[in-house]
């Protein structure tokens, strides 16, 4: 831990001088990521769910073969499985995107996860 105020001030200055470049990197990375869609499948890829970058469900494609070969209950379960798979892929992509944004020796993914843990501890 740094205790020298001069050294602390120098490190703050250095960190803040890097801030504009970091924000530009955030903007470019987030803009690229926001336009993406992620899919998840079930029933041997005959049911496909697509979510946007935020994990919001965009659409579900069900093949005619799935409608013929699955009963109504299995069809519902397969739709849920496809949606969950698509959401998991989007979540993974988000974690990767945040992990790629580094600033001040750490990355945004770790920072946000750590922030969440600290908030939980603080309110306990």
């Amino acid at each position, binding site marked *: 831990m740094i205790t020298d105020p001069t050294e602390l001030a120098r490190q703050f200055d250095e960190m803040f001088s890097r801030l504009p470049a970091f924000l530009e990197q*955030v903007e470019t990375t987030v803009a690229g990521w926001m336009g993406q869609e992620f899919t998840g499948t079930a029933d041997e890829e005959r049911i496909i769910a697509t979510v946007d970058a935020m994990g919001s469900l965009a659409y579900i494609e069900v093949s005619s073969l799935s409608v013929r070969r699955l009963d109504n209950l299995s069809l519902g379960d397969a739709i*849920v499985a496809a949606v969950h798979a698509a959401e998991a892929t989007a979540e993974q992509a988000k974690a990767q995107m945040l992990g790629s944004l580094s600033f001040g020796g750490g990355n945004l993914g770790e920072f946000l996860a750590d922030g969440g843990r600290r908030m939980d501890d603080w309110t306990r």
Partner: protein
Amino acid sequence: MRDLRGSEILSLSGGQAGDVAQQVDQAREQLRRVNETMTALAEIEVVGSDETGMITATVSGVGKLRSVYVSPHAVRELDNVMLGEAACQAIHAARAAAGEHLARSLSDATGEEMTDLSTAEFPEDPMAGVRELLQG
């Protein structure tokens, strides 16, 4: 290093930071209530249906998809494309209902009006404010 509690800030500052200490304690209490509400909401179930009522989706109070029920009638009446659209519609309806429920529960927990996130619009350029700030 352990985080300070509001009362500790007050004693360390020799009584000069009464307002800050009170605000810190209030914020901590409010966040604790939000956490409790979110935990309770994760346990409840909210349902939504497509416009025909033949497909029903169930989500948790925080919007996690739990199940989709496709009625035998839907399998007979809808083709595969319509079935996919109807399932999507049912899931959206359930999540919208969960969003409204979430906003109401958070308002009750914090005593403040919450935006219904299911209908909230995101700004086109969320970074604009930060850029302006940096450019002076």
